[in-house]
C-alpha cells in the first residue's frame, strides 16, 4: 500500500481509546454509523430517533451536551462540572470510558476529559455523508490515478528540467548586476494596460523558457503558414527577443499591437482597456495558433499548447442537497481565477469584520480565496434537482480547485455594480497579498474534507505529493478610476522588486509593492521560482544575443 503524505496528522490514541478498541473493535462505531444524520449545513450529528428527544438516563434532562456511551449505549448529560452525569456513568461502570458527543459527532474520553480522534470512527461517520462523493477505493483505482498524475505532471517535469539547464548556463556568467529581461515598454497611446500584462508574461517562467528556447521558431512558422496569416505568437517571440537582448532602451511593441488589433475587434481602438480583458484575449489568441499548429487536442481536453501548460487549472463545483447530503460535482477548466473583494472588511464598519481581519481592518487575498471557496446556500428560488431524493431541494454550492495551474493568475474584481444607481464604481480598498502562498486549503480534497467536518479518511481525490506552494513573481496594479487610470507592474527578479511603469524601470522596496493596489497577482509554483543568490538571469559581459543559445534537448 503506498504511503500517503497526508495533509493531516493522525493524533496518537489515548490508552483508554486503545483499550476500548482492543476490547470492542469497531462494533460501537458501526452502530453509530446508522444514527449519523446531516443537518442543512452539511454537519454530521448523531440522531438516533427523529421522533424522540434524547434524554439523560440519570435525570431525564435534555439540556447541555449529551453523550452516548459506546459500550452500553446509555445517554447521559453534562451540564456543568458539578452536574456531569456522564462522568457519573463512567465512574459507575468500569471500562465505560469512551463516548460520542451527539451534537458534534465526536469521540470523548471521560478519563482524559478530552475530545479524542480515531480514523476508523471518522470513516464510520463520513460513510453516510459522502454519498455521491466516492470515497477511496484505493486498491484498484490507485494505480490508475498514479499514472494519470504522472501524465499531468509531465509538463511540470519538463519545465523543471529546462530551468535547471538554464541555471547551469547562467552560472557561467554569474556577476552581480541588473537582471536580464528588464526593459521598458513604450506607451503607444493608452497602452499601459497592454504593457503591464506583457511585463508580467515576459517573466512567467514557463512562457519565458518556451520562447527563449526558440520553441516557436519564426522562420519555420512563416514556412508553415502559406497564407501569410498574422501569427501572434511570432510577435510575442519578437518581444521576448527584444526584451532579453540586453538592449536597455525602451522597446515599442508596435508590431504586436497591430497584430493584436487585427485579431480582436472590440478591443482594437485608442481607448483605455482592462488589463485582465487583454490578458485573457492574449491567451486565447496564442492558444488558437499554438493549439492548431501540428498539435492534436487530446480527447480528454488536455490542450498541450504552452498557454494551457502554463495557466490551465481545473475548478470543481459541488452542489450538495441539504436534505440527504448527496453531492454532485462538475469540473470546469480555467486559466485564471477572478476573486470578489472581501468588501465587508473595508475598515469602516468594525462590526462587520470577518474573523481573519478583525484586528487590522484590512482585506486579504487569503480572505478572498476563503470567500471564493465558501459554501454558498442557494436561495429557495434556486432549488436544484437531487438525484437521490428525486425532487428539487435546497442546496449548498461550493467551489474548489481540483488541479492547480503552474502559473496562477488571481484577478481581483475591483468593481462594484450598483443595480439601483445602474453604475459601476471601483473599489480602491487595499488588499493584502502574501509573497508566498500555499494553495493547499483551496484544493478540492481540502475543501471537501473541511465540509465533512475535517474527518480523517482517504478521499478519492487526495493528491499525493502535489505542489501547492506558490511564489509571487509579478503584480499588476491599477491607480485611478474605473474609466481612466494607470497600470503599473511590479516584477520580482532575484528577490528584488522592480517597478515597470511603461518605459520607466526603477528598483523599489518590497514595502512599496505590499502597499500597492493589486489588480492581477501572478504566482508561480515554488519549484519553478528562483530567488536571490543564484544570479540566474544576469547580463553576461558580452551583450551578444548568443547568450541565449537554445538549449538542445530541452524537449
Amino acid at each position, binding site marked *: 500500500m503506498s504511503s500517503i503524505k497526508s495533509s493531516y496528522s493522525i493524533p496518537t490514541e489515548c490508552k483508554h481509546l486503545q483499550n476500548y478498541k482492543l476490547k470492542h473493535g469497531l462494533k460501537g462505531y458501526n452502530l453509530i454509523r446508522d444514527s449519523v444524520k446531516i443537518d442543512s449545513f452539511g454537519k454530521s450529528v448523531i440522531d438516533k430517533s427523529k421522533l424522540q428527544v434524547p434524554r439523560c438516563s440519570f435525570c431525564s434532562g435534555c439540556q447541555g451536551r449529551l453523550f452516548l456511551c459506546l459500550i452500553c449505549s446509555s445517554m447521559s448529560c453534562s451540564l456543568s462540572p458539578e452536574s456531569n452525569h456522564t462522568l457519573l456513568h463512567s465512574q459507575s461502570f468500569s471500562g465505560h470510558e469512551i463516548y460520542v458527543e451527539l451534537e458534534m459527532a465526536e469521540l470523548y474520553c471521560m478519563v482524559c476529559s478530552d475530545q479524542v480522534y480515531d480514523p476508523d470512527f471518522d470513516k464510520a461517520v463520513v460513510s453516510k455523508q459522502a454519498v455521491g462523493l466516492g470515497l477511496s477505493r484505493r486498491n484498484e483505482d490507485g494505480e490508475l490515478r498514479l499514472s494519470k498524475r504522472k501524465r499531468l505532471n509531465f509538463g511540470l517535469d519538463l519545465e523543471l528540467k529546462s530551468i535547471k539547464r538554464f541555471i547551469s548556463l547562467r552560472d557561467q556568467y554569474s556577476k552581480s548586476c541588473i537582471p536580464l529581461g528588464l526593459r521598458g515598454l513604450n506607451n503607444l497611446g493608452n497602452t499601459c494596460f497592454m504593457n503591464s500584462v506583457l511585463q508580467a508574461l515576459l517573466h512567467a517562467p514557463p512562457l519565458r523558457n518556451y520562447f527563449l528556447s526558440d520553441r516557436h521558431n519564426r522562420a519555420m512558422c512563416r514556412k508553415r503558414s502559406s497564407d501569410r496569416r498574422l501569427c501572434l505568437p511570432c510577435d510575442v517571440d519578437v518581444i521576448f527577443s527584444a526584451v532579453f537582448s540586453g538592449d536597455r532602451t525602451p522597446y515599442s511593441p508596435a508590431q504586436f499591437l497591430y497584430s493584436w488589433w487585427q485579431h480582436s475587434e472590440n478591443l482594437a481602438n485608442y481607448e483605455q482597456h482592462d488589463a485582465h480583458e487583454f490578458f485573457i484575449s492574449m491567451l486565447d489568441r496564442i492558444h488558437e495558433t499554438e493549439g492548431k499548429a501540428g498539435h492534436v487536442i487530446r480527447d480528454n481536453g488536455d490542450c498541450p499548447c504552452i498557454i494551457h501548460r502554463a495557466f490551465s487549472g481545473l475548478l470543481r463545483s459541488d452542489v450538495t442537497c441539504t436534505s440527504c447530503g448527496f453531492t454532485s460535482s462538475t469540473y470546469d477548466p480555467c486559466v485564471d481565477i477572478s476573486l470578489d473583494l472581501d468588501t465587508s472588511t473595508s475598515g469602516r464598519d468594525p462590526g462587520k469584520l470577518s474573523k481573519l481581519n478583525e484586528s487590522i481592518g484590512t482585506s486579504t487575498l487569503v480572505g478572498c480565496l476563503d470567500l471564493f471557496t465558501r459554501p454558498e446556500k442557494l436561495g429557495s428560488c434556486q432549488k436544484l434537482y437531487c438525484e437521490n431524493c428525486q425532487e428539487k431541494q435546497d442546496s449548498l454550492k461550493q467551489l474548489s480547485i481540483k488541479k492547480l495551474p503552474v502559473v496562477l493568475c488571481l484577478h481581483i474584481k475591483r468593481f462594484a455594480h450598483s443595480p439601483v444607481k445602474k453604475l459601476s464604481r471601483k473599489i480602491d480598498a487595499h488588499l493584502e497579498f502574501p509573497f508566498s502562498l500555499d494553495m493547499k486549503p483551496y484544493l478540492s480534497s481540502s475543501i471537501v474534507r473541511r465540509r465533512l467536518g475535517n474527518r480523517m479518511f482517504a478521499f478519492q481525490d487526495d493528491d499525493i505529493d502535489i505542489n501547492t506552494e506558490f511564489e509571487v513573481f509579478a503584480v499588476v496594479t491599477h491607480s485611478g478610476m474605473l474609466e481612466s487610470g494607470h497600470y503599473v507592474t511590479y516584477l520580482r527578479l532575484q528577490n528584488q522588486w522592480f517597478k515597470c511603469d511603461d518605459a520607466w524601470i526603477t528598483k523599489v522596496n518590497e514595502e512599496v509593492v*505590499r502597499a500597492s493596489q493589486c489588480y492581477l497577482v501572478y504566482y508561480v509554483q515554488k519549484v519553478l521560482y528562483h530567488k536571490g543568490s543564484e544570479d540566474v538571469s544576469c547580463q553576461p559581459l558580452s551583450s551578444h544575443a548568443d547568450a541565449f543559445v537554445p538549449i538542445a534537448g530541452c524537449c
Partner: protein
Amino acid sequence: MSTSNDDNLSSHSQLSYQVFGELLDSIIVDVASESHRIARLGLDRNLDAAEEELRLSLQARGSAADPSSSSETTSKYVVDIFGQTHPPVANEIFDCMNCGRSIMAGRFAPHLEKCMGKGRKARLKATRSSTAAQNRHSRGSPGSAYSPYPNPNSTNRLSNGSLHVTGDDYSNGTLE
C-alpha cells in the same frame, strides 16, 4: 401593571434567557470542537507564515503613508535603473506597418486606429465624406489593406444607411 403580568414577563424573559443560553452554548461548543480538531490534526500549520505576511503588509502600509518614502508618485522625470531618462510621450520613431508613414511611438495607437479604420472617430469621420468615398469606391480605387467591413453596402453601424468605407481616412492619413 398587575402582578400576574410581571410573573409572565419574568418567566418569559427567563425562558428566552434560557433558550438564548442554550443557543450560545451550542455555538461555542461548535467552534471549540472544530478548532480542537483542526489543532489536533495539524491542519493549521500555515498560520504562522500567514500572520507574518500580514504583519509585513501592515508595516508596509504604515511606511507607505509616510510622504518621504513615496516612490509611487510621478516618476516620469526620474532616472531609471539604467541611468536613462525618457520624455513623457515616447519619441521613438518608426514606420507604421499599415500605411508606411513614420510615426512617433507615443502617438502610434491613435494613428493606427484611424489608419486601420477602427474606433468611433474613424467611423464618424467616414460618414461626412461618405458620398465622395462611395464614388471613389465604385471606381475601384485601392481599398485599405485591411477592411473591417467586407460589404461596402452594409448598414449595420449607422441607422441612416450611409456608407462607411475606410478608403477616405486611409488615403488622407491621420489628422493630428
